[in-house]
């Protein structure tokens, strides 16, 4: 099965290309678009991007594995990313993790069909600590209770 951009992504690509002095700048945007299209970046998608941008495949792997937000394997539907850096830890991140474990039965770095639980570094929401990122959305000023409610609201 080979990968091509869907119509929307192809249109975005075409619109972005003239905005940069060199097409190599489109590496990150292309990786994002591929990830949005399939939920992760497959080997076929990597091949496609490598040919589209005329960049070596090894270079593309080097770039994709450098950034934490790119998934090179399929992940469950809901990725719960709890911020673990100092302000969030000071404000009770561990209680949030416990609440998550109680609600979905998973500890950090564990996954099931529906959820994956990770700890991530500072998300730039220190004023709303403790907080987590659910897929792409921030949820700040959490309590154990509001965390459980959040998971119930979004994930059932």
């Amino acid at each position: 099965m080979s990968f091509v951009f869907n119509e929307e992504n192809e249109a975005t690509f075409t619109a972005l290309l003239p905005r940069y002095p060199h097409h190599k700048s489109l590496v990150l945007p292309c990786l994002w678009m591929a990830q949005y299209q399939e939920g992760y970046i497959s080997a076929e998608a990597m091949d496609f991007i490598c040919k589209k941008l005329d960049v070596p495949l090894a270079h593309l792997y080097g770039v994709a594995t450098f950034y934490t937000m790119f998934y090179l394997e399929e992940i469950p539907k809901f990725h719960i990313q709890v911020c673990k850096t100092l302000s969030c830890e000071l404000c009770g991140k561990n209680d949030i993790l416990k609440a998550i474990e109680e609600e979905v039965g998973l500890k950090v770095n564990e996954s099931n069909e529906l959820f994956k639980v990770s700890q991530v570094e500072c998300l730039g929401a220190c004023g709303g600590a403790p907080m987590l990122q659910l897929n792409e959305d921030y949820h700040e000023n959490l309590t154990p209770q509001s965390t459980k409610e959040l998971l119930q609201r979004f994930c059932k």
Partner: protein
Amino acid sequence: MSEMVSINVDGNRIQADKGALLLPTLLKNGIMVPHFCYHDALGPDGNCRMCMVAIEGQKRPQIACDTLVKKDMVVSTKNESINDVKRKILELELLSHPVDCPICDQAGECSLQDYYMEFGLNEARRPKEEKKLKNKKLDIGKNIILDQERCVLCARCTRFTQEITHTNELAIIGRGNDARVSTVPGQEMQTPYAMNIIDLCPVGALTSKDFRFKQRVWFMHSSKGVCHGCAKGCNIYIDHNQEKYKSDTIFRYRPRINNRVNGHFICDEGRLSYKDENNERLSGFYQHNKLISEERAMTHLLHCLTTLHPLLIVSPSLSLEELTVIQVLSQRFNLEVHAFAQGYQDESFEDDWLRSKDRSSNLASVKKLDIKTSKDALIRALECTGLVINFNHRSFLNTKLQDQAILVNKKEIHFASHSFDNCKHKELLIPISSYSENEGTLINEDGVLQRYEAGLCNEKKSLLQILHELISTPATPKEVWDKHLNEVFGFGYEDIGPEGKQL
């Protein structure tokens, strides 16, 4: 032409090119500055931080690979504080490095070992159980094994595939101390120059599968040879050792730097051609499948030369001196000499770097001596004789002429370094030493005349020696030059320097 300026290094004045990089300047002047990521063929990368030196006027130590030579700069490569810096950075390089020396092929030519012995010698301050585990025995193709744990992430190998071969097989993936060198999952090295990364790797992260566990490097002798795989004439080291009860054996070829010919690299086929050189060696004189004495063989040869008007066929990979002496022989007995160069042509081998479509190593010398090379001339000459004397022309006996069936009724005398089909059944088989055992000169396809030294010691006579004993032609290359070649070239054998002479 850049300006030469004087700089002060460790109290000594040296002359240097203004604006040149400091590190290669120091290295060229014999000043040892530890480094991993810098390489003459790749330039600096600034990531290993080992080449730190103190520059007067600069608050912090600077990396010599990113510092430019300035007039009157004062450099310290080994005061107490810089030594401490070097030791600490080396300690960090070794922090995750597995204690593999007893099983690592790089031992004896490993930068980590060398630097540790020179200025490390400190106890480990982190328990080895805490070392990060990575992939240890990845076969990445083209005879290369990657051990990610030993890697110091100097990026020489990735830069080689990006900037030299432009084949981009390798990249650094991951981040932080999880970063590692890798190919694309499921893919392998492709470039015909892949094995050069084994030499580039300063540690045992990239090793030769072919050489794995075969020999410790300190047992080997390195002879200065020239690859005979094609007309490029890349310079090599022939690494060989004679183990007990065995003959002197070649364990590997490595590139030898010659900025006039091959730079720092050789192709993989040339590198692995040592196997052909080792295999199928001949010993003993044979006539119609019977082992005979050297005396008898020489008598028969002389008889054939005198009475049977044989055709002499020479390999275009023989040395200039061997070709010269054979030409003298041909003149003495009024015989024709042919080289049949076509038999060594292979268009598919050619590329735009170090691989020539001419798979012989000395065709230029053949032409310089006006020896005929065409197929047509050879076929005409063959029609006029019943005996062929072949001086090691390997491909002479394969299909290119066989299918013409013109050898069918001819007798064959062979001077051969290596065995071939039915060789012992011929009229006469005379074993001779091969290029790795001889010294001599070659002219490559770009007109560079190069000398190579005698390497292995095995008890076979060289072609020059045999002919000397037969008809008193010069016995050594120098004697050949003194008698015949000095006049031709206008200089002597001793005048040929290490990078050869451009004709």
